[in-house]
């Protein structure tokens, strides 16, 4: 999912999809839907809105395939996600709404028994706790920094891909990412007691 996208013939799938092959595009969807959904979630902080946005992004991407001029398909796709989410955020600003998630974590992953996976229950719970902590911490970052760290450290994009996705210079990506990481380090040290023991920062153990 990260940097191994070139191992499968993405270019061929994109070309087939551009010629109208829905199956080829569905293969691309299956490959990228997790990243698209997570980026939408990090921007919207609402599972239902992220779900809707993800579906609409894939529909828009399919219809906009003729405009794709090559390069990183993932960057192009995530750019559509970012634009759609920003539009949604602007719309929310005009007409504020209250999400069900504001009343608590109500998505299906709040119940570990509903999730599928071969991991041990203890590991699953630890990972979910860690993810919840990270998501809370990331939410405290400024939006620009959050986008940079999510795209690089959560999605695994290269700097250039982030620059293409956000349409910003490479140096800006570097500086935003560096500031985001420094901020995350400070915030995680404040939340140290809430981190699972194996994930606690070594620098804190020495203190």
């Amino acid at each position: 999912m990260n940097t191994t996208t070139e191992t499968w013939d993405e270019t061929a799938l994109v070309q087939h999809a551009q010629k109208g092959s829905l199956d080829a595009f569905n293969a691309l969807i299956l490959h990228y839907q997790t990243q698209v959904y997570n980026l939408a979630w990090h921007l919207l902080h609402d599972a239902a809105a992220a779900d809707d946005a993800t579906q609409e992004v894939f529909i828009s991407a399919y219809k906009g395939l003729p405009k794709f001029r090559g390069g990183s398909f993932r960057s192009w796709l995530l750019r559509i996600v970012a634009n759609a989410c920003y539009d949604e955020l602007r719309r929310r600003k005009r007409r504020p709404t209250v999400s069900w998630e504001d009343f608590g974590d109500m998505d299906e992953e709040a119940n570990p028994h509903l999730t599928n996976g071969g991991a041990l229950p203890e590991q699953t719970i630890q990972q979910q706790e860690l993810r919840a902590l990270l998501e809370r911490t990331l939410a405290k970052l400024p939006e620009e920094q959050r986008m940079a760290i999510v795209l690089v450290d959560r999605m695994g994009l290269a700097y250039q891909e982030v620059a293409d996705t956000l349409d910003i210079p490479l140096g800006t990506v570097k500086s935003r990412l560096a500031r985001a990481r420094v901020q995350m380090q400070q915030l995680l040290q404040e939340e140290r007691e809430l981190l699972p023991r194996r994930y606690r920062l070594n620098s804190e153990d020495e203190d």
Partner: protein
Amino acid sequence: MTQMQTMWRDVDISAYVDGELDQAQQAAFEIALARDHALQQKVEELREVVALVRAAPLREPPRNYLLTPAMVTEKSVTEKSVTEKPPQRAKRWPASLLFMRLATSLAAIAFVVTAGLTFVQRSITPTMMTEAPKAAEEMPVLEAPRAVVATVEVSEEAEVMLASESVEMPEEPVADEEVVQAEKAVESEEGVKALAPAPPAATPQPDAGGVDETAAINAQEREEAAPQVEVLALEPAPAAEAQVADEVERTAEDSAGTLSASGEGEWMAYDTAESGVEVSHEPGTVRQLQRPSWWLPTILGMVTLLLAGITYWVSRRR
């Protein structure tokens, strides 16, 4: 070593951790890292943070988002909402909504004030004559002779003008006789009755006829002397007489009608523009005619309701 510490910024350390430095920078950074223990610690801490951020799994999407031919042929609702631009309407509505709210408020205030005033005025309108049949009977009786006297005075003036032009007739006896007759009519109900049934008879005909005869004789004499004077002298006479006769007839009819109504025990309401008095249908009650009506509050209420409806519609559309 201190120089090396200040040389490498967080951006460089972050890029080094990700392997995003170019070859020259990478080599220089590694040389500094081998010598600088603080830099080593910084790099280590940053790697831990990055590892921690990457360690947490991504959220699993709640479903697959595979497309079907139907989904890509129809325009979805959300896509419509994204492509369409409602802000123009949102900009246009607030001003009109504000205006509508203001208009509705003003109309409502006007309605309340008008309705309240109307209600109060109607409730406290003074009763001019209450439960006094006698007084109510006297009123039309008193009004009629005044009208008669007034008309008689008009006719007297007309006659006097003619008389003064034609012959030097003694004016006072004629006027005195007429006034005396009118006063007699006022004093006695019989006199009024005598006036009422026959309006022409109510006027002092014998005297008027005497005056007319004298005026005619004088006019005839003057006709012989100066024909051009006749026109001036005779023209007003028929008009004045006709006017006097009409007014006396009307007054007598009114008086007779009122008297007959009172005689039957029924009260008839009639309007008198000058006095502004009405006789109520209720026995013995006379009230002012110009009582405030409800038409203005009703209209204002309807306007208020209309404006309120439009305002609600506008706010819902917004």
